[in-house]
């Protein structure tokens, strides 16, 4: 619906009332660029926590392994400084599972332009995390550290509702609907053109410019082929020539040229990133974001402690159990995040109501004093209400409900749903959030005439129990489950790069 309006009015319209992602007061913005055709060869990155103080890192010859890891070390120092600045203060928290424990009070947040930017960081993480500071091909100690942290952050980014590594286009698209496709929304300049076109330009002009690499250099990670051909390739060749001749002054000059060239390509994206951040900051944060941030803090602290204890790099593939665990975690997070959004945000709820996955209406019948006796011979209040809704409800009897119109602990169950002309009468039994007595607490049961919103409870589910590695059935184990450290592939991995 919102997309349709956006198409008609040629401007972005809001899709949600709130911003559902935490936006750190001091995010680290990284704009990575990679070299075309090479496997995860970084070309440059611009990084920094302030719009006015970007740091530009350039690899003059991306095919050269030493330069590549020098770049990784530079970026690693920026990232690790940033992460360490969030590891200063801890605070005690009571956890139901682990008892009292402590957590850091803040967590890092890295922002990249688009999903491709995350992919670039994943590749960089994979390239760095098995490297060693000593041995035949030593790298700076910060390199493997960067690799492990990037891998950790990228793994959290897969999980819905987290905020430690995010593509800005994704955050924008979560709040604003444009009149174009999801694919085109991944172009930062284009989605920004819809939301906030540059001074004096219409949306139509802004999005046309966004696709013209001569006007808007792409936000990466790939550079425009035209740019590669006309500017980048000759500049790299000049650098190589001077480097081969051993002419130090000329090499420095060629490198400076390259930096300037790439800087010009990356700066527009840098400015757009910060413009996007301030646009997002202006959107009020959803109430439940804070609770999700607590989970980020917990996982950040846990990983940080693991690292402090000399953690090993993440393995290349999940084993059977790891994969099952991860899948269950991701599915869980997705369902929780969707429910959270609908709970907080009337527009998100409206969306689910249109699809029949939630409903709202007025209480037209009530049996507030209903009491039943449970199997354990206890008398408990089980009031029933009838909600008359005009929504196309598709929820079946037996579904547990939660409601943004009631106190948080309110729980209810659909008993029956009877269509009645254009409306539907839904008989709902309140099952929780009424206190411990036989008489429900005041205000815990909806009253006649009250407007109620209901949506399905993503529910508390027990964490699924997976077998321990040593009791895994042989059908699910494979020799590849070995410790990644012992992988012989590393030796081969080093062959590339010094050859040319």
């Amino acid at each position, binding site marked *: 619906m919102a997309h*349709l*309006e956006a198409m008609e009015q040629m401007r972005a319209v809001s899709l949600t009332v709130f911003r559902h992602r935490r936006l750190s007061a001091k995010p680290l913005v990284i704009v990575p660029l990679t070299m075309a055709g090479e496997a995860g060869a970084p070309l440059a990155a611009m990084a920094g926590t302030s719009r006015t103080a970007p740091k530009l890192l350039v690899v003059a010859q991306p095919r050269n392994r030493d330069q590549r890891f020098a770049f990784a070390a530079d970026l690693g120092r920026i990232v690790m400084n940033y992460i360490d600045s969030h590891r200063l203060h801890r605070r005690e928290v009571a956890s139901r599972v682990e008892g009292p424990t402590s957590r850091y009070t803040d967590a890092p947040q890295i922002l990249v332009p688009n999903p491709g930017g995350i992919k670039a960081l994943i590749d960089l993480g994979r390239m760095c995390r098995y490297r060693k500071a000593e041995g035949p091909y030593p790298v700076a100690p910060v390199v493997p550290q960067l690799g492990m942290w990037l891998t950790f952050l990228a793994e959290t980014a897969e999980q819905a509702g987290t905020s430690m590594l995010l593509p800005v286009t994704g955050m924008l698209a979560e709040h604003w609907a444009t*009149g*174009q496709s999801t694919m085109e929304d991944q172009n930062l300049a284009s989605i920004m053109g819809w939301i906030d076109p540059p001074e004096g330009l219409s949306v139509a002009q802004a999005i046309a410019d966004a696709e013209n690499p001569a006007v808007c250099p792409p936000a990466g990670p790939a550079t425009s082929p*035209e740019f*590669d051909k006309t500017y980048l*390739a000759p500049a790299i060749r000049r650098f190589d020539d001077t480097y081969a001749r051993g002419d130090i002054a000329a090499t420095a000059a060629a490198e400076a040229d390259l930096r300037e060239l790439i800087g010009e390509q990356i700066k527009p994206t840098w400015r757009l990133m910060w413009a996007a951040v301030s646009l997002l900051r202006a959107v009020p944060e959803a109430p439940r974001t804070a609770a999700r941030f607590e989970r980020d803090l917990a996982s950040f602290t846990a990983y940080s402690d693991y690292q402090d204890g000399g953690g090993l790099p993440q393995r290349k593939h999940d084993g059977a159990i790891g994969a099952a665990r991860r899948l269950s975690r991701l599915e869980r997070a997705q369902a929780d995040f969707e429910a959270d959004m609908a709970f907080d945000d009337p527009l998100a709820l409206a969306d689910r109501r*249109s699809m029949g996955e939630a409903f709202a209406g007025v209480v037209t019948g009530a049996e507030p004093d209903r009491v039943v006796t449970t199997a354990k011979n206890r008398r408990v209040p089980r009031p029933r209400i009838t909600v008359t809704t005009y929504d196309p409800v598709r929820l079946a009897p037996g579904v547990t409900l939660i409601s943004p119109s009631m106190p948080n602990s309110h729980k209810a169950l659909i008993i029956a749903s009877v269509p009645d002309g254009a409306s539907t009468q839904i008989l709902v039994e309140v099952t929780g959030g009424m206190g411990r007595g036989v008489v429900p607490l005041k205000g815990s049961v909806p009253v006649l005439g009250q407007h109620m919103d209901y949506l399905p409870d993503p529910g508390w589910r027990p964490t699924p129990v997976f077998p321990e590695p040593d009791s895994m059935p042989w059908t699910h184990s494979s020799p590849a489950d070995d410790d990644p450290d012992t992988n012989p592939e590393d030796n081969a991995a080093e062959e590339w790069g010094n050859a040319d």
Partner: protein
Amino acid sequence: MKAAVDERLDGLRGSAPRLTYSARSLAALENNPRCTLRAVLDASGSDKAAIAAHAGFPTPFGQSPFAIARGNVFEALVKANGCAELIRVLRETLKLTLPEVAYQDLNDVGGNASPEVRHSRTRQLLVNTALGKSPGTLYDHPMLRLQVGGHTVFLEPDLVAFRIEDRFHVVEIKSFPIIDGRADAAQVKAATTQASAYVIALRAMLADAGIGPDAVSDTMLLVAPKDFTNSPTAAFVDARKQVATLTRQLTRIEHIGDLVSLLPEDLTFDLAIDKSGRALRPAEELAEALDQVPALYRPDCLSHCEMAFFCRSRARACASLDVLGSAVREQLGGIDTATMALGLARGELTPDADQAEMAAALRHAARLRTEVLGQADGAGATA
């Protein structure tokens, strides 16, 4: 009948030389096969890039010189010394027990590189091998031939057709990396589709010699750089589905006449290029000609079809829901434009019988949205 269709296609193309299909353009058939505009332009051998550019929508496609260089370097590396690296990978990574391997360079035949000569040499060698008269061999750049819509297309498996366990396998050498056993899905798919064109051509060639399709495996071998290195690794990729799809698309080309006969007699996409290479045809006239052929725009066309930007501008102009992508399109089945959808939602248009259900849903969604936004505004005003 056939001749008449060819004449029509020639007329559509006009004075420009005919472009033949390549493995890439054949592979592209798999994307959006229902688009008439693309089908007609392809079948007539028109230069889509030139047409789109002249109509005011030049295509930004192009490959970075770095990518091209990398591709060439990697292919050379794999094939160096009679494919020594490739054989090592096949033995070590795929654990194939290969007997002695002979290597046959088919890039030219005694210095003659014409496609016809190379093709006949390829056929002679491969048929003999299939009949068991000569030993298993790697063939570097064999030349295959396929009839597409009555025209001969030469296909050059950028790589080698190879014989494992008595069947030919198409080998594709690509320079995108396989990291930890995984590669980019879109790129693998493109490579597989390209390979399936070779599978079809190879089968067609052997069929002429009375050899059944089983001689060619529909599993292709993908050879690509391992992780971040330059050393190759390999994987088998099942191309069955794509072989089937592409076969179906190829038969559809045979029926291009049905589509062409629906178009106006005098329609042409001729750019009227003069001797100095300038296109004399007025751009508006060309655009009008293009508008006569129904196109089916989808956002993913932008990544593979030269006409996509032209089609998108058309789709936008008529507020077609295609602009938003297939997810929205499917949600609003039966409704074609945003104008219509919004009209129904606001109750300004009366739905016909098919649209009644959708219209009710739209009206409901619109009401909810206004309700919420109204509340939010109200809250803002009182605050």
